[in-house]
């Protein structure tokens, strides 16, 4: 006898899916527990901690110079920006002066690192959405930047270049000329890449009106960096809380305008990063014009002992606001070093924007907030 199943008798439940930790779309080792209703995402629970290396605890046993290689390894795609923030925090506490040339070198290298990081975002985001060759094009330019970094600092990814009180090696005139040429080349290429990917109708279809983060949501979750600016908030620490030589330089704060859809969607976040690269090139050119001659390292005591007290200093990294909270008891080692990571807050907004999306759109949302798991877990 056939039993007639009415809709009330049918038992429905959400299907639990695991995305990651080895899923290529999760950019590292992020595990997303997804509850799906057919192809619609009902709930997302991010599980982090797969790349936790006890960095902060480890730093409590290292002298202040030895911490720099460790902050490199937190955000390995924008290591120069990480070092810069840490160096400024320690210098402020020490009352250490930094030579003017070193400040300019830091700005040049820091902006180049921002371009390299955004190019990485551009490439991997295109891969997430099914385009492979933009990734290879972006890596060609990134490779040129890394080559200069390698010649200057000696390493390709984990530099240990910005030291407390200056920088390790000087940029030669040859380097400066090559950086000038490289910035011209990259500017041309970025325009090309934008036509290739950003203007493509398929890409727009995948990203416009997807993963909208409203301004209120940004404030609630404390989002920073390109994600915040993509939602139309004009907030850039380089402009609003200027540090180093940024007050002397001219650049625009890029905000999302909702050209292809609503303000705060994935396309806006992509667009903010692409246009930020142009601003970075603008900054590099100004620095190259203004860079003075002089020393690159000021005199720092051989054993650095910070005075008793604490400091919180934040800088604008490629991914957002990176903050260092150093508590010192007057020893050679910090009592506590807390790193405020932008990616951690960005991940926390995922459960808010994901429900109601298709699974493929969820991949687009994860890619657009540009997370580095090394920095989330530390």
């Amino acid at each position, binding site marked *: 006898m056939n039993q007639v199943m009415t809709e009330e008798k049918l038992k429905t439940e959400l299907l639990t899916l695991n995305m990651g930790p080895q899923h290529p779309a999760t950019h590292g080792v992020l595990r997303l527990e997804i509850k799906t209703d057919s192809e619609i995402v009902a709930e997302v629970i991010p599980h982090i901690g797969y790349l936790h290396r006890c960095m902060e605890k480890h730093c409590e046993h290292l*002298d202040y*110079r030895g911490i720099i290689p460790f902050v490199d390894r937190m955000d390995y795609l924008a290591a120069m920006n990480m070092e810069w923030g840490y160096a400024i925090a320690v210098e402020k506490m020490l009352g250490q002066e930094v030579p003017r040339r070193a400040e300019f070198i830091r700005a040049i290298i820091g902006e180049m690192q921002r371009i390299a990081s955004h190019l990485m975002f551009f490439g991997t985001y295109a891969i997430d959405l099914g385009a492979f060759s933009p990734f290879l*094009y972006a890596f060609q330019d990134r490779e040129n930047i890394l080559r200069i970094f*390698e010649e200057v600092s000696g390493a390709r990814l984990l530099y240990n270049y910005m030291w407390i009180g200056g920088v390790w090696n000087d940029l030669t005139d040859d380097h400066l000329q090559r950086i000038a040429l490289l910035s011209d080349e990259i500017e041309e290429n970025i325009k090309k890449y934008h*036509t290739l990917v950003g203007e*493509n109708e398929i890409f727009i279809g995948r990203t416009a009106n997807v993963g909208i983060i409203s301004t209120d949501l940004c404030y609630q979750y404390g989002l920073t960096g390109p994600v915040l600016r993509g939602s139309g908030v004009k907030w850039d620490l380089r402009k609003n809380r200027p540090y180093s030589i940024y007050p002397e330089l001219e650049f625009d704060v890029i905000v999302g305008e909702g050209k292809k859809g609503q303000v705060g969607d994935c396309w806006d976040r992509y667009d903010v990063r692409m246009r930020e690269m142009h601003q970075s090139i603008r900054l590099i050119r100004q620095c190259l014009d203004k860079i003075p001659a002089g020393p690159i390292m000021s005199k720092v005591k051989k054993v650095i002992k910070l005075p008793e007290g604490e400091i919180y200093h934040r800088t604008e990294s490629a991914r957002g606001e990176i903050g260092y909270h150093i508590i010192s008891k007057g020893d050679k080692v910090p009592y506590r070093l807390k790193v405020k990571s932008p990616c951690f807050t960005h991940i926390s907004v995922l459960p808010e924007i994901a429900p109601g999306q298709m699974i493929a759109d969820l991949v687009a949302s994860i890619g657009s907030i540009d997370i580095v798991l090394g920095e989330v877990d530390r």
Partner: protein
Amino acid sequence: MNVNANPEDEVTVKEYFGNIWRAISTTFKGMMITFKYVYSVKPVTIEYPEVREVLPDNSRSRLFNNADDCISCTQCALVCPVDCIYIASTPRSKEDPELKTSDGTAIKQNLTQFTIDTALCCYCGLCTTVCPTECLTHTTDYEYSQYTLDTMMYDYLDPEVRAWKDRLVSK
């Protein structure tokens, strides 16, 4: 224009064909760029085992300690953030002949062990910056993978390891 418009929404004929035209034209533009790369850009990939890239001079690859110049000051071991340098030495007696490094610093200790655990090394370069006689340096040699971890322990007093002094990756 709302590209993610609900498919059930009414679309005018103009919008319908406009969408198709946009999709074709933007994809065509992208394909033009791709073809430019296919035919006019030379390959940039290095065919690794056949062609070896020469690293810049100050590239930080394998550490090398010239044990003749080492004065056993242990500064490198102290500054190392991962503690991968092991140094042992015995004081030289006054009867022993005077020894000097190549830059004229007197050697007051007999180096009995200088081992670096290369598997543990994080290539930060801090040890090379504190070395007073500049005997500990990073070389540009990057081909030294091993099958087991214990073979990554390099004893720089070993004559075989000393011979690396001139070993660099050739073109």
